[in-house]
Every structure is written in C-alpha cells, then in structure tokens.
C-alpha cells in the first residue's frame, strides 16, 4: 500500500505558531531568570532552540536552553531495544527553576514521562511545564501540555513529521498516512 504525505502547516503559519507559543510562555512566567528551556532529543531540540531565541527577544535576556535524552528512562527498552544516545546537556542547575520541557509532537505521553524522570535525576525544578508544537492525541498516560502549537486529530498508524530549519528542514509540518 502506497503511503501518502501532505503538508499540514507551511513555513509562515509555523512561524506564527512558534511566536504565539513564545508569548504564551512569557505571559505565564513573569521572572525570566527562573526559566530554563529543555528540548527532548531529538525532535524537541530544534523547537527549543527556536523558542529560546524568540523568548530571548521578548524578554531581552538570554534564556538558557538545554537538551535531555530519554534513552535511559524509556519504558519500552525491552520491546524496542537500545536506541542511539544523544547528549543530555543543560547549561544551568535546574534546582528551583521553572523547566519548560519542549517536544515537537506529543503522542502517547511516554516520552514526556521518561523526560520528567530524566530531569528528576538532575535536580528538583520548582515546576515543569510542557510545550509541544503538535498535540496529536492518542494519549496513553495522564499527561497534558501547557502550551500547544496546534492540535491535530490523527489515527494511530499516521505519522506527524515536523521539519524545522534548525534540523536542516524547511519549517513545515506534514502528515504521512500508511
């Protein structure tokens, strides 16, 4: 069966979405010095870089931006085997900070669960907020995002592909149907 692929969000719309999300994060959090952005490897890293840049413009201060890899904390290591590891690197101490966890697509919620456990190994943030570009539903855990770029209704066998310039892409979101 041939798969079909269609662009759902183009570069202009995606730019507006990201700008709005940055403003929402700034609106919710009054003290920029408390905020740390953490992108989940790998899809969330480009989005975190973009939002970090936008928030730095809004606030006029550089917002620390880091990455977290969830490979050691996944709950499916037995089913899916070991995956390639990417750096967990957060430039500041996250204790008592507001960590905005960022991913490109929110699906089952299992990656976010693993990312929160991974953050707990690094310290005790004041709170963790969740920002996702696309919420495609189909949650398997009680996890709810604080900031959403766009909600999409999808079927389990579909794939959402976010392509950001930070990762060498073209700033689009596409939907692939099997």
């Amino acid at each position: 069966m041939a798969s079909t692929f269609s662009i759902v969000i183009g570069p202009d719309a995606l730019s507006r979405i990201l700008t709005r999300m940055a403003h929402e994060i700034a609106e919710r959090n009054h003290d920029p010095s408390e905020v740390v952005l953490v992108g989940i490897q790998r899809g969330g890293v480009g989005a975190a870089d973009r939002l970090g840049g936008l928030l730095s413009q809004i606030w006029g201060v550089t917002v620390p931006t880091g990455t977290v890899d969830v490979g050691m904390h996944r709950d499916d290591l037995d089913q899916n085997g070991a995956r390639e590891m990417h750096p967990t690197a957060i430039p500041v101490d996250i204790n008592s900070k507001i960590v905005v966890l960022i991913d490109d697509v929110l699906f089952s919620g299992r990656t976010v669960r693993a990312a929160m456990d991974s953050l707990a190994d690094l310290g005790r943030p004041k709170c963790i907020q969740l920002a996702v570009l696309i919420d495609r539903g189909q949650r398997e855990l009680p996890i709810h995002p604080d900031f959403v770029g766009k909600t999409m209704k999808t079927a389990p066998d579909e794939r959402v592909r976010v392509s950001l310039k930070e990762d060498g892409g073209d700033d689009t979101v596409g939907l692939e149907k099997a």
Partner: protein
Amino acid sequence: MSWTRKHLLDIQSLSAAEIETVLDTARSFKAVGERAIKKVPALRGKTVVNLFIEPSTRTRISFELAAHRLSADVINFSAEASSLRKGETLKDTSRTLEALNADIIIVRHSATGAPHFLSRFLAASVINAGDGAHEHPTQALLDVFTIRECKGKIAGLNVTILGDILYSRVARSGIWALTKLGARVTLCGPSTLVPKVFEKLGCRVVHDVEEAVREADIINLLRIQHERQRRTMFPSIGEYTSLFGLNKARMAKTRPDVLIMHPGPINRGVEIDSSLADGPQSVILNQVTNGLAVRMAVLFLVNGGSEASLAQ
C-alpha cells in the same frame, strides 16, 4: 543505530561501526556518573550475574557497579566459593543461574571460548569479561574510549603495546579494536613474549623498546603475568625492567604529548617507573573511570539487543 547483538563475546567479530556505537553510548553513561544522582532505571528489574571462574577484583567490581548504576540486581559468583569446587560443570552452573532467571551473565574463565560456549545454549545475554589468553573485550573498548577522549580520534594514531603480548587477552582485544578503528599498532617486548607471528594481525613487531616508543602517541603497558607463564620466557624480572621497563630516560626520547596507559594492576618498578605511573602523562585512572561507563554501555546495549526485541 548499529547494535543488534545479544552477546558481547569478542572484538574480532565486531565492525568499526559497532565499536563506535559502544563508545558513543558510553559517553552518555559517563555523563551520568558525573551527576549527583549516578543511577538510571534502564535495567530496572533485570538480574545480572557476575560468573567469575577466574579471580578478578577490578573487572568484577567495575561490572558490578555498572549494573547497580543501571538499577539491575547483581549476583556475584566466584570459583572459590562455588559448587564448581564440588565438581559441577560450567554448563550446569550457568544453567542453574539461568533457572534463577538471570538476564545477563558476565563470564570470566581461564579457558578460551568459554563465553562463546555458554552463549550457544543460554537464553541470557553473555558478556565476555576475559577468556584465557583470547579476548577481554570491555578492556579494549575502555582503552579506545580513553584514547578517543584524550586525543579526539583513533585513526592514524601510533599505539605501542609494550609487554607480555603472548599471554595477554588485553593485547589481542586491543589489537582488534585499534586496527579496526584505523590506528597503527606496534607491539614490543621480549621476542619470546612478542613473536613475529603477531604481524599477521596487522601490527608492527619491534624488539627494541626505544624504537617502539619513539613515534608513539599512546604507550599501553601490559603487566608481566607471572601466573600465566607456563615456563620462563625471560631470564629475570630485573632484566625485563632494564630492557623493556618504561623509565624517565626512555620517556625523554618519546613525543612530548604521548599518553601512558595500563590496564592494571601495575607492578611499580617493573614495567613502569613509579613516578611515571603517577605523572601528568598517565591516564591510568581515567581508564578505570571510563571502564565503568563502557561497561554500563555494554550492559545497556546487549539488554536492548535481545532476540525478542529484534523480532519486532
């Protein structure tokens, strides 16, 4: 991701890409060891058995701590205190351990091929922690990890392995790993312990120590293994030290940025001058730290490389 193996039995059968996967994974685990909380849940609920039929302290402790840091349960099983003394075969011992639902069995044995033998009938993953004079894969992996960390690369480096090559599984695993990653390997020691036949593995064999270390980027010293020598291979320890020991006079004729490695335990004053072992060019303790990260990576990878997971 180039790792699909359920066992780690030797370096000889690994590809360069597989070795690099272990090194990259180990880098992430090294970062875990530098945190306040040094433990991750990756092997939670798994049982790891240290089956050490030959005495070992450093390797066993390193594997044990690695397994603990991955949240696995660990059983230590040594030859001295085991039913092997009562005449049980290795096969029966390992099957008994497996009947206790062990997931990963780490084997050290004086017989070449013992881990390979176990891997043929055990459902558990098998990791070779040293088999006879054959291989010691995690030692080679931690050595190349340390070299890559210090020098930024492996390919093109001159690595001299100095000492008892003939009886050394560390040397054999090291030769495989280094040559696969593109290093130029020189072997040096008494001709009885470093026969020319090793040239067939793609190494240079030299019996003059000054020539062997002159252009070296890395000098990896091996211990003279009294316990493995079936007959006298050189006249005396004193003669070995005077002809092949690494001392200040010999170091003065090496590259200024040469690094000294040693798998331990060190015989101070035999293969290396005490001050050199503690000097700024020695990365001997870095090797110990890196060994932990590499063994965490290997445990993590073989656990993920189980046949059940590959079937999906």
